[in-house]
């Protein structure tokens, strides 16, 4: 066997292995969660409240909690990221853009727990005193910090997409007398929208999957949050809190329902990105 064929086999093996891990993960969760699929239990777990005292182990409050925290995070991160990446691409290219970009790249490397820690000691008291309601551990606090956490990744995605818009388009617009703002709104953002949507979808995946921020800042109350200042529990935080309970208990089994839900969400996001990429020019 020549070298090339050996290399081919090795790479194929690596690809098959990593792909099968992804599939096996799902199989593993479904097998361990199998008792949940009998007699409509899975549906009940998805729709019921969490009241262990009354033997009700539904994760509906956690689904709502996850969606609330993640949507707020995206609502914070999206305008912020679009603004910063526009600044890098149009408003202040050159040294300032370079500086901002390095700062953003550095931010992506800060461990999540640092954000959580700062949130506990700075943002939580601020939110509690400002709104004079609740403990400050709430959807709002977690959403704000999570937004800041995912923003750097989103900014890098957006700036790459904006930078890939052909220079000739930009030059043509400028030759027609367009101001930098007009270039941004009518040429760059439309040209880069696929990259922008990709960044948005992947960042949403990250916001939904993040555990530590929700665990440290959202309060973890197993209730459907009635507002931004209510304590809420995310699916990920629920897994972290319940994993220590008895293996054979039903509450432990709900972990698999949460895992399957998170897996399904990530899979859907990935498929959406793929579809988008296939439609037009290569996105990544």
């Amino acid at each position, binding site marked *: 066997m020549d070298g090339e064929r050996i290399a081919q086999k090795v790479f194929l093996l690596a690809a098959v292995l990593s792909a099968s891990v992804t599939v096996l993960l799902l199989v593993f969760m479904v097998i361990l969660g199998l008792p949940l699929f009998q007699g409509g239990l899975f549906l009940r777990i998805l729709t019921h409240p969490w009241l*262990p005292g009354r033997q009700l182990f539904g994760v509906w*409050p956690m689904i709502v909690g996850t969606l609330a925290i993640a949507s707020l995070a995206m609502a914070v991160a999206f305008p912020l990221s679009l603004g910063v990446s526009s600044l890098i691409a149009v408003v202040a290219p050159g040294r300032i853009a370079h500086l901002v970009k390095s700062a953003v790249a550095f931010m992506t490397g800060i461990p999540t727990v640092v954000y959580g820690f700062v949130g506990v000691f700075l943002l939580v008291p601020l939110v509690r005193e400002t709104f004079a309601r609740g*403990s400050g*551990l709430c959807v709002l606090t977690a959403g704000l910090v999570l937004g800041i956490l995912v923003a750097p990744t989103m900014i890098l995605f957006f700036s790459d997409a904006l930078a890939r818009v052909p220079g000739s388009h930009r030059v043509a617009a400028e030759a027609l007398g367009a101001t930098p703002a007009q270039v941004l709104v009518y040429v760059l953002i439309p040209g880069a929208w696929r990259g922008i949507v990709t960044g948005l979808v992947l960042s949403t995946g990250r916001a939904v999957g993040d555990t530590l921020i929700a665990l440290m800042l959202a309060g973890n*109350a197993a209730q459907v949050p009635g507002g931004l200042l209510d*304590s809420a529990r995310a699916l990920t935080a629920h897994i972290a*809190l*319940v994993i*220590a309970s008895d293996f054979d208990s039903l509450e432990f089994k709900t972990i698999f329902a949460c895992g399957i839900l998170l897996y399904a969400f990530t899979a859907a996001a990935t498929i959406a990105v793929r579809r988008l990429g296939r439609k037009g020019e290569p996105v990544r």
Partner: protein
Amino acid sequence: MKMGLWFKAAAVVVMMGLAALPASADPLAAFNGQKGEIRISGGTAHIPVMEEAAKQIRTANPDVQISIAGGGSGVGIKQAGEGLVDIGNSGRKPTDEEVAKYGLKVFRWALDGVGAVVHPDNPVQSLSKDQLKQVYAGAIDNWKVLGGQDKAINLYTRDEASGTRDVFWKRALDKGDIHAKANVVPSNGAMKTAVANDPYAIGYVSVGHIDVTVAPVALDGVVPTNETVKSGAYPVSRGLYSLTKGEPGRLAKAFIDYLFSSTGQQIIVDKGFIPGN
């Protein structure tokens, strides 16, 4: 006379040395020449004692590595039972079922109370049991009702694997409801931080963890302290347990023996617990 004085001085020195020997040298001697790792996890109330003991053992013998993780009593029982750790800690007595299923050996080395705590600035530092139960059930939701400020009460509780929660729920709340709006924190340390940072909070921690950052709440007029827990006047108490799967290995046994030695007992006292079984 002078000789006599010197003799007395020498005798005192020798006696002091002898007295000190069994206390300091003996329990650590079991680690001499040993090498290896002791893995510990579980109850978060135990952690300060575990860390101090580990520090002293490491100083005496750097070849012995000791890793300490939290997770709660449920984790301690489960991981010890499955052989994932050498010693699992629990703040509740493992059930007969758990002992039989895993073949656990149970070492109880301290008595500990679980007390309700509030922020030190909170004027409400005494509640009847009935009031406490109503607060946790959500029936009383404003400090004004209890004589405090006109502010909503922020409830804090622990996750379901917590031994501290188990004891508090059974003995202080008589298995009453804990409202779903209660914030959930994952350890005794996190509870203390949360309550210390929230002027309108009420939570509960192991009495050994109560310090100036939080204020204990008297229950039916009895303040949770080591003295009241020891005398039995304060009823919400439990043992602190370390568990091993079957007979402990040599290093794990040396560690547990160290906890029961006079130095170990002193560490337990210093960290705010009541030693003994």
